[in-house]
């Protein structure tokens, strides 16, 4: 049991290595000269040397990589080229803002996705099922940022119910979270439906039926419990990939999160910000994937022994 959880943690180590290398390369391969970016055009040679020395830019790449990892573990992500402030001062408030609406989106995704999938599975190939499945197809095919823009037009401009963006009130969370939840909820609905239909074909369902268990309790007690494994896995993976989706949503809704910081960092050629953003989102995704794996092991003992 314990060895399963430990094994998963060990599996994570090479991934963590790849993430840190990728984040390191973002800064290392950046064509801009960090000394010039920090000191400005008119700095004296002494100031430039001091900065070069402090950043360790004259040392070999692998030493710089080591320094980068050590600093990052201690929460030091360097200095932003634009604001000349520590990157950490920008990145942590942004990360909190991203987590707030991702958490709301996650709850909405589950509330929308699972019932929609169950509803479809109770009456497969009915008109109800076709409606749900067509919505799922549309949800998966529409560009997520475009859906957000359509929502802004309808709910903010036409109906005037909700703000267009920013993070100035709790109502502002609703539209970005809903946009995110609908797209990822579509996948949850699809998996819920498929795994319910799959489980319903099994022998033990037929046994329960022949014992005279009512259709309703066969469905909700016997089938749903066994169908829940792939559903839980999907939700875990979707939450992880949602963090990627936030990058697009944050631009649409002018949300002060990591995604927007990251994109602006690239456009403004602020490599330390980009580096920290990539590292932070990737690590968060990694942790979520690990938690999903663990949860899977808790729910299904067979997984632990394989």
């Amino acid at each position, binding site marked *: 049991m314990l060895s399963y959880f430990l094994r998963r943690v060990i599996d994570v180590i090479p991934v963590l290595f790849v993430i840190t290398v990728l984040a390191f390369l*973002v800064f290392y391969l950046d064509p801009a000269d960090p000394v010039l970016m920090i000191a400005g055009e008119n700095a004296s040679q002494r100031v430039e040397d001091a900065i070069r020395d402090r950043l360790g830019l004259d040392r070999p790449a692998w030493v710089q990589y080591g320094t980068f990892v050590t600093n990052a573990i201690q929460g030091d992500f360097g200095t932003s080229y634009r604001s000349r402030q520590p990157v950490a001062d920008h990145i942590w408030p942004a990360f909190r803002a991203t987590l707030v609406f991702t958490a709301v989106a996650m709850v909405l995704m589950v509330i929308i996705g699972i019932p929609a999938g169950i509803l479809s599975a109770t009456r497969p190939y009915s008109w109800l099922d076709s409606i749900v499945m067509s919505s799922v197809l549309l949800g*998966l095919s529409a560009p997520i*940022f475009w859906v957000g*823009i*359509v929502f*802004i037009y309808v709910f903010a401009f036409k109906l005037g119910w909700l703000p267009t963006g920013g993070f100035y009130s709790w109502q502002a969370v609703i539209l970005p979270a809903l946009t995110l939840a609908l797209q990822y909820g579509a996948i949850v609905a699809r998996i819920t439906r498929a795994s319910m239909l799959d489980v319903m074909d099994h022998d033990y369902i037929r046994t329960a039926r022949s014992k005279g268990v009512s259709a309703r309790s066969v469905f909700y007690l016997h089938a749903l419990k066994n169908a829940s494994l792939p559903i839980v896995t999907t939700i875990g993976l979707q939450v992880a990939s949602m963090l*990627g989706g936030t990058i697009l949503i944050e631009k649409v809704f002018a949300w002060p999160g990591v995604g927007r910081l990251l994109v602006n960092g690239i456009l403004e050629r602020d490599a330390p910000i980009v580096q920290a953003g990539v590292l932070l989102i990737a690590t968060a995704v990694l942790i979520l994937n690990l938690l999903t794996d663990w949860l899977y092991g808790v729910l299904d003992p067979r997984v632990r022994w394989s």
Partner: protein
Amino acid sequence: MTGGFIVLVAFIVIAIASPWITPTDPLRGDLRLRLAQPSVELPFGADHQGRDMVSRVIAGSRVALLVGFVAVGVGLIAGGILGLVAGYYGGIVDTLIMRVMDIILAFPWLLLVIAVVSILGPSLTNAMLAIGITLVPQYARLLRSVVVSTRQHDFVQAATALGASHGRILWFHVAPHTLGQTIVLSTVSLGKAILAEAGLSFLGLGVQPPTPSWGMMIAVGQDYLRTHPHLSIVPGVAVMLVVVALNLFGDGLSDALNPTRRK
């Protein structure tokens, strides 16, 4: 599936023919028409530089198709070779390749694309390459699984007994078995790549102006959303139509190739 196929063929024809069928030059605007509302002459109106939106949307299909095909090509060739090699040789080569694929697959595609683009710099070529990289693991996984199941067959052993080289066996005896599923995956991947390109251009990290891209049109349109919603909505509908068509066509193909799944 038929509907999907028709939309798909229309999209490809329009994309290829776009330089000759746009009513006006999609790059040259007439400032007197700046932000013109939709009318009989300009069914989708004109953008902030007075460029006809019908022409812009038609021209945007070309970029979508180009990025889509090149990205899928990158994914197919790189992922295909890795998958064939991993499945055929097995052992440490297999473990190593598939571990790397798992790592790539564990990440949100957009984050990966952004990391690659920020290292290489935003441009059309880099966008195609970055999106292609995100497609590699799926191809590697698919081809590997088919190869592993095909390798056991008698005809592969017969070919080996006849003295055929590894390369020959892989290419002439094993690879053809992967064709059906590869086509299905490519259809779905093409949709993903087109969505990815739109997203990247929306962020300003993909195709650079003045080249018309649907994602960029949606981004520019957002600035005029209150008064000119069609500037964002029309290109978005174009993306959605193409991706829905690809998904429907892919589902249909996969059912046709796998009759036991049909219900």
